[in-house]
């Protein structure tokens, strides 16, 4: 278990269970999971298919509530929040990157990013600059007026990163962000995410079963059959980097 020296965890799960009813049966997707995430982490959730990676990210991302246990995000127990309040937390504090990119097809790259910023309730002033800056930071300044269908998969995922980043969230959640990309584009996306993490200190949590992706993570939480079976900080990382609650190089 990775622990932190100082400060409060960004997110804390204690003995979280998630059951899905399936006809008469109940699928136990998470069977009592406890984990803490600290600001500035760049963490992979790894494990075989069906191990509960998506489920745990959904709970941390406030897309869903646990069946049992507690999920604290920035000190608040999200299991007690109403739908609208969960929506508010997502709008303001969490950015999402999806496996299938999930851009709104009728909106241009610019508008996709702008939509997220607007929904976050951000000040209308300076929105244009923020959207343009977000798209510039993912290298898409020249593609702002294109619709998703006119962009490659890698470009679409960059738009998605810009959309997640633009509202400067506390946390970006990426469920298998590279699964629909070839290895070159996948690596590029991962490097981009990692640069954002290093430059802005944005916390990234992602899931994968791709060794290339795992090799870039600072921390790997291994899941199997709804339980955490490993939580490691790759040796090549220096210890203080592995738990970057204390800012890197600070």
């Amino acid at each position, binding site marked *: 278990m990775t622990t932190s020296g100082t400060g409060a965890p960004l997110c804390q799960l204690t003995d979280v269970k998630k059951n899905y009813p399936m006809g008469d049966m109940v699928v136990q997707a998470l069977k009592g999971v406890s984990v803490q995430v600290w600001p500035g982490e760049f963490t992979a959730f790894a494990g075989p298919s069906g191990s509960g990676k998506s489920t745990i990210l959904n709970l941390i991302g406030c897309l869903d509530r646990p069946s049992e246990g507690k999920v604290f995000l920035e000190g608040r127990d999200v299991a007690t929040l109403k739908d*609208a309040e969960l*929506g*508010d*937390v997502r709008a303001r504090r969490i950015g*999402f990157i*999806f496996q299938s990119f999930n851009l*709104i097809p*009728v909106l241009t790259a610019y508008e996709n990013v702008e939509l997220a910023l607007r929904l976050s309730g951000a000040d209308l002033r300076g929105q244009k600059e923020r959207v343009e800056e977000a798209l510039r930071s993912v290298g898409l300044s020249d593609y702002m007026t294109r619709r998703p269908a006119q962009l490659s998969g890698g470009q679409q995922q960059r738009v998605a990163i810009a959309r997640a980043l633009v509202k400067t969230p506390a946390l970006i959640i990426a*469920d298998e962000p590279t699964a629909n990309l070839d290895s070159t584009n996948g690596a590029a996306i991962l490097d981009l995410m990692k640069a954002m993490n290093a430059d802005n200190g944005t916390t990234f949590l992602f899931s994968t079963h791709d060794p290339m992706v795992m090799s870039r993570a600072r921390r790997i939480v291994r899941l199997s059959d709804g339980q955490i079976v490993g939580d490691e900080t790759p040796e090549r990382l220096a210890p203080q980097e592995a738990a970057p609650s204390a800012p890197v190089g600070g």
Partner: protein
Amino acid sequence: MFILALALRNLFRNTRRTVITSAAVVFGLALQVLGWGLVDGLDDNFLRAAATTTTGDILLRPPKYPTDGLSFPLEEASVPPALTGFTGDTAPRVLFSAKVVHHADAARALGVAYDPDLDYRVFPRERWRVQGVWPDKDQPQVAMGDAMARLLGVGLGDQITIQARTVDGAQNALAYAVTALVHTDNGQMDNNAVWIRMAAADELLQLQGRRTHIALHVGGLQDSTVVRDEIQASGMLKAADGQEWTAKTTREEAADLLAINDIRRKAILMLVGVIMCIAGLGIASTVVMAAYERVREIGTLLALGMKRREVGALFLVEGALLGIGAGIIGASLGSAAVLYWQVNGIVLSPELMKAQGSFPASAVIYTHFNWAPVFGSLAFSAFIATLASLFPAWFAAHLNPADAVRAD
């Protein structure tokens, strides 16, 4: 605001589907507006036909005279009231059944005996005249409806014989020269009317001062219903022989025909209602399909923090825009047709007019544009479209974001 923009973009996403769905709404609303304009035009037509040829603004009759406008019993003719104190124009008349004979041809006819000094003040006679001059001189002359003249092969100056029964029931027949052919706003008159001076009619029918109708022109901007009530209340309608004549406005005279138009309106409403229900089902299926196809997108919007009611509103607005957009197109098309025919008129073919021999209407129907059916049908289509989107909106608003973002 961006919900509106997003809904608008979404509508143009599957243009073909949107167009097909809109077609029913466009058709329904165009039909509604055009149908309404046509029936309103028919109302005008009936009223105009009645007012300009038989009733004036108010029509007076002897007390027992039938008011159906179909039979003209001369035995009910009566001494007319003097109408002292009435300030408008009056046109006393005698209508009678007759037979017109021209060489070997004969036809049943409606005789119209008129006072040459008064009739033109109530009826636009000069406008009707297509050939010749009105037989106002003290000569055995008549004017004839142009369609009837055509039927009998009568030309200007031809001699005809009119057979009729006198007030006392005796057969009589006299010869007349046709000095005018007329074309009124009333196809029924053109088909079978002959106009004859009152003095000449006296000779033919032995009227002894009796009349069957008096048409009044109230003049100015006075409401004929109000004037009618005043006339009735004033006792002006009491004739010298003590009989009280009846008074009806043009609208009351045309009530039967106007009632038929009300039935036409109901029929249009029902037809349009059925079309709009079909259109509503079309819109519903379009928006439902849109919602099912876009589950992942809805999930994404929810993940980005869009409120559930905003997501629902998005689909409601999509449906409403479809209804309003298609509605505006349909209502515009209908309005354009109504406005065109309001100016140019729809000319009924002579065959149709002949077939409708007893149709008291002009051969040209001018449609009547009215804002009410335009706004009414627009509101209706927006309502139907929004209603049709309720289920898809509810469906979209209740998706679980965690599942929806991963849907395929």
